[in-house]
């Protein structure tokens, strides 16, 4: 899904165009009260084209037609926005459906294997899947180990290893086994599989209005009713002054005043928000979860893999008495010549970073001593007879002592110092001489510190969970800049922390993959399970990250915020627009009867007709102009709420006041030649 088609491809647009006509059906329009009012206005103005004096004095047919056409387009634009947002989801669903062909499964029945279609599989069935076959349904590996190509759901082409037991046992239907053979216990009935759920989610079939959308919708309906009252009472007041107001003019005023801009884009914003999450390769089980992620106060992150690289990297060479750091580095590098472990690589990288050289020829043809659990050392036996080792401090100490070497006095204190700072010391020795220590450190991922700082400015507290001892945990926590940490944490600790934070009224998000994370994922307000994780974890979570990248939770929060911000900003914009529309339409309505009203025609619009039509046209075209913004969401940079408000208030509030003045004037300049 990662490489899904661009935002606006041709096929998508033509489908959306079709949909926007189908959606004119009043039954469907009723769901959007603001646009429904526009549709009623459209019907009345069409009626007026044919029976011009149905409601009192007639206006020119040309004007009636113009109003009807603009109203029709206003509705079509709004429908198009919604259809486009839905279409993008549907396109994804279609590509998913293609992978969901009927698969023949090999069901294990007692001693023999029966071939059945995958739709006949039920929860609890056991199937055997061999190399080159599709896994027929969601399940858990109960026997064997295989590499599986999951690109159908994740878009990631590199295969992943799945094996029985542990946290990598869950497999998804529709993915392909590319080596070996596994036995899988099916965990879902047909129609309820992960792929099915995913299809219905991206299709938006299950889309329900989120609480926030409902609240905003109420406000929009209320505004619509207020403006309905304003417009309905106006002719009576005008009538008292012996001013006649034509019905199409009143319809134009009403449509301009009611919040059509946000009313037309509201559902598109919601769908697009969900879609952005999906595009990000995270599956949200509901729009509510996406919205809730914008409100998150606390994020619980696992240290390993999220905050740190998870493997220990050489960060310093610590010499013993009589040796230099460069010497330690030299021999550490020699010993790591053929060492492909991250620790070994990091030694060579540290050398490079320090700008130190070592004799790369020296190790050529040497005998490689692999790391073994018993020896806890690795290294080389050089062709010249010297033996180089690096490894656990006590192992190296024993090795050196066996050869009659002495242990430098400072070794123990240095190694204790490293350990107490949260690092891991590795000793480097050549024959009976210990040169010093490699300081291995769990390294914080690049950029994490800045991100945590951003989160702090957004008002989000970060808590790191780690199995490390308190000392190590404290060091990493300080380096990464997280607000709090739990050392030697157990899954129960996580739940306890979540409960504690929730008791303070906070919303908590967390990521997890293991079965033992499931209760915590369920307890959290936003739980993101890794796709690589167990079925239990995925069931408990309300989002699934298909890339299994735990640090993505941060982006998900940003998307949630962006969703709400887009709604708020466009609502503000929509309402602020009304000021300019008033100044276009009100003088135009009364100018004939009260010539002095010209004073209110601040935009100096050409004629009453052009003024009304310009406002109405602006009201219509602003919807398609804002579709890209509704789809992408308003720009969001993490900053404090006051600055954010200031910024959005300026752009969408002040901008919302000014833009239509300019827009209406420009449209007026264009159309004054035709009216």
């Amino acid at each position, binding site marked *: 899904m990662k490489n899904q088609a661009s935002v606006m491809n041709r096929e998508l647009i033509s489908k959306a165009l079709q949909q926007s006509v189908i959606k004119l059906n009043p039954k469907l329009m009723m769901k959007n009260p603001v646009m429904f009012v526009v549709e009623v206005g459209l019907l009345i103005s069409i009626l007026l084209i044919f029976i011009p004096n149905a409601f009192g004095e007639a206006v020119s047919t040309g004007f009636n037609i113009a109003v009807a056409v603009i109203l029709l387009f206003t509705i079509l634009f709004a429908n198009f926005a919604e259809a486009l947002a839905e279409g993008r989801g549907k396109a994804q669903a279609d590509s998913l459906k293609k992978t969901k062909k009927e698969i023949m499964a090999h069901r294990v029945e007692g001693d023999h294997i029966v071939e059945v279609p995958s739709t006949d599989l039920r929860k609890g069935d056991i199937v055997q899947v061999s190399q080159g076959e599709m896994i027929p349904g969601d399940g858990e590996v109960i026997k064997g180990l295989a590499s599986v190509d999951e690109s159908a759901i994740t878009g990631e082409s590199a295969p992943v290893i799945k094996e029985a037991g542990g946290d990598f046992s869950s497999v998804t239907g529709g993915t392909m086994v590319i080596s070996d053979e596994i036995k899988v216990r099916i965990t879902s009935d047909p129609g309820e599989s992960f792929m099915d759920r995913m299809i219905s989610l991206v299709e938006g079939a299950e889309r329900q209005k989120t*609480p*926030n959308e*409902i*609240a*905003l919708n*109420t*406000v929009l309906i*209320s505004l619509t*009713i*207020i403006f309905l*009252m*304003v417009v309905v*009472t106006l002719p*009576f*007041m*005008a009538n*008292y*002054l012996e*001013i006649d107001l034509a019905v199409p003019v009143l319809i134009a005023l009403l449509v301009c*005043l009611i919040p059509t801009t946000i009313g037309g884009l509201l559902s598109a914003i919601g769908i697009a928000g969900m879609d952005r999450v999906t595009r990000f390769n995270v599956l949200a089980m509901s729009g509510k979860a996406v*919205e809730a992620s*914008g*409100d998150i*106060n606390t994020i619980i992150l696992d240290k390993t893999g999220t905050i740190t690289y998870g493997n220990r990297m050489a960060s310093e060479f610590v010499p013993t008495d009589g040796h230099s750091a460069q010497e330690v580095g030299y021999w550490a590098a020699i010993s790591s010549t053929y060492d492909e472990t991250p620790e070994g690589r990091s030694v060579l990288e540290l050398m490079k970073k320090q700008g130190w050289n070592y004799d790369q020829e020296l190790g050529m043809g040497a005998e490689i001593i692999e790391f073994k659990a018993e020896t806890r050392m690795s290294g080389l036996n050089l062709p010249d007879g010297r033996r180089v080792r690096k490894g656990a401090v006590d192992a190296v100490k024993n090795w050196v002592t066996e050869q009659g070497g002495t242990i430098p006095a400072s070794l123990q204190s240095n190694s204790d110092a490293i350990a107490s700072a949260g690092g891991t010391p590795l000793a480097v020795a050549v024959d009976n001489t210990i040169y010093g220590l490699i300081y291995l450190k769990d390294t914080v991922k690049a950029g994490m510190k800045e991100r945590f700082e951003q989160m*702090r*400015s*957004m*008002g*989000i*507290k970060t808590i790191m969970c780690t199995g490390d001892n308190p000392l190590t945990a404290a060091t990493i926590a300080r380096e990464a800049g997280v607000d709090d940490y739990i050392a030697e944490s157990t899954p129960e600790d996580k739940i306890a922390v979540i409960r504690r934070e929730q008791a303070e*009224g*906070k919303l908590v998000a967390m990521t997890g993959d293991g079965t033992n994370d499931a209760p915590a994922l369920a307890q959290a307000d936003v739980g993101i399970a890794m796709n690589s994780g167990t079925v239990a974890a995925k069931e408990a979570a309300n989002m699934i990250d298909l890339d299994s990248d735990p640090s993505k939770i941060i982006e998900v929060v940003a998307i*949630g*915020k*962006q969703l*709400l*911000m887009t*709604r*708020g900003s466009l*609502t*503000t914009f929509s*309402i602020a627009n009304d*000021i300019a529309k*008033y100044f276009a339409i*009100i003088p135009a309505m*009364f100018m004939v009867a*009260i010539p*002095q*009203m010209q*004073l*209110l025609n601040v935009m100096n619009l050409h004629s009453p007709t052009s003024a009304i039509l310009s406002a109405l046209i602006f009201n219509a075209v602003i919807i398609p102009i804002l579709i890209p913004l509704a789809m992408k969401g308003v720009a969001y940079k993490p900053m*404090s*709420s*006051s600055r*954010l*408000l*200031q910024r*959005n*208030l300026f752009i969408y*509030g002040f901008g919302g006041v000014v833009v239509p003045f300019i827009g209406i004037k420009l449209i007026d300049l264009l159309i004054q030649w035709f009216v």
Partner: protein
Amino acid sequence: MSILPYIGIVVTLIIVILLARPMGSYIARAFDYTPGRLDRWFGPLEKGIYRIGGIRQDNQTWKQYAAAVLISNSILILIVYLIFRLQDKLPLNPADIGAMSPDLAFNTAVSFMTNTNLQHYSGESGLSLFSQMTAIVFMMFVSPATGIAVAIAFIRGLAGKPLGNFFVDLTRALTRILLPIATVAAIILIGLGVPQTLQTGVTAQTLEGAQQQIATGPMGTFLAIKELGNNGGGFMGANSAHPFENPGGVSNMLQIMMMMLVPVSLPFTYGKMVGNRKQGRVLFVSMMMMFIVMLSVSLFSEHQGNPLIQQAGIQQGTGSMEGKEVRIGVEQSSFYSVVTTASETGAVNTMHDTLTPIAGMVAIGNMMLNTVFGGSGVGILNVLMYAIIAVFLSGLMVGRTPEFLGRKIEGKEMKLIAVTLLIQPLLILAPTAIALMTYPNTISNPGYHGLTQVLYEFTSAAANNGSGFEGLSDNTIFWNVSTGAVMFIARYFSMVTLLAVAGSLLMKKPVPETSGTLRTDQPLFGVVFVVAVVIVGALTFFPALVLGPIAEQLTL
């Protein structure tokens, strides 16, 4: 143009501003249920009242609180209605005034119970002394006390505390706030020359030798609560333009201060009760800014005078003097008109009908917004509703589910508020349209001004202000019944819905404040609040105002 009247305005405002905070704190303390020093002074009296009234002092749910308000107020309306209907048979009627007609009695009873004091009668000729002293003065105390009580209950809900007990709050508003201050004010006003007598009139011999009957009465006590309680109903038909109801410059200033005292203090009460004084200060400053803008526009317009009179060759060096008391002058009249409409009092010292169109629009605009301080209690109630709307929009703009004082504003609250928001335009625009369509003959000046007269009447009723633009023949069944209904719905509908909002917010678990929370105690929020108020108000009423005062001004 003399500078002196302006010094008067500035001094008055400064005194009001200085009083606001301590008075706000005092009100907060007065309603604090934890025993304090005030209980020692007022406790015995209040305990007596509770015993006589059989009041249990337990906390009420929002439904119980709202029911207590509705039932008690309705019963009072009925009693007062009966007094008006039977005043010819009741004692203390030396001027032999007849019974009120049913529709006028209904209108007047609702009017005074809802703190509106729209008067479709003239006090000196329409009410007996008994009616004035029992029905009218009694309601003038109870209605602002009701407003204050509901506001306090609402604020308690926002602060996450139980809403309290309506009868206890009502009693405390009377014993601790209105009665003591009104007593002192009455003594000062009487000292300034306001009559206080049971004699209904004195007969004077005019220079031409004719006999003139000059009405008097127990006006000092009446006047004190009329202003302090944001009631505004005049003892005399001429209200505070009458020399007995407003003897001079000092009494004029004092009346302005009394009108503003409770409304300007309540933001500080709110700040104190929710435990963050800044919250109240932001709202106070925002409202004061709106007030100053309104006042400046009004003063400017009045100083321009009327171009028609200018053309007639009459000098208007001091501004538009039409309809004004010479002893009060343009500035103090204009100031009074802005204060009385901002504080929803409705007392007048000049005929608003004769204000220049733009100054008239300021008066009507104050009532349409109903958030430039507003009346006793209901003002802050309305202001907080707009604050919640502002929070909702700006909360979304910072990407969070909006929260106000640590409580999430969600669908349920917004539904209640959205409905409340509908009520005011409905009660102003719909009846205005109906009246213009069906009873154009009750309007004294046809045309734009006539439209404004009708619009003003219903705006005044819907804002529970009570000042009249006058010029309407409004003592008819239509006007009495329609404005009576408008006043009643306007007053109680929002009280009930907003108590429901408080009840709902109260149940929510508070959300801790972080740097991601929208701060509502910062100047920026004040800006959002003002913009929300002005835009919603302006968008709703702009067309009507264009056809009324704006058209009138443009065509002068």
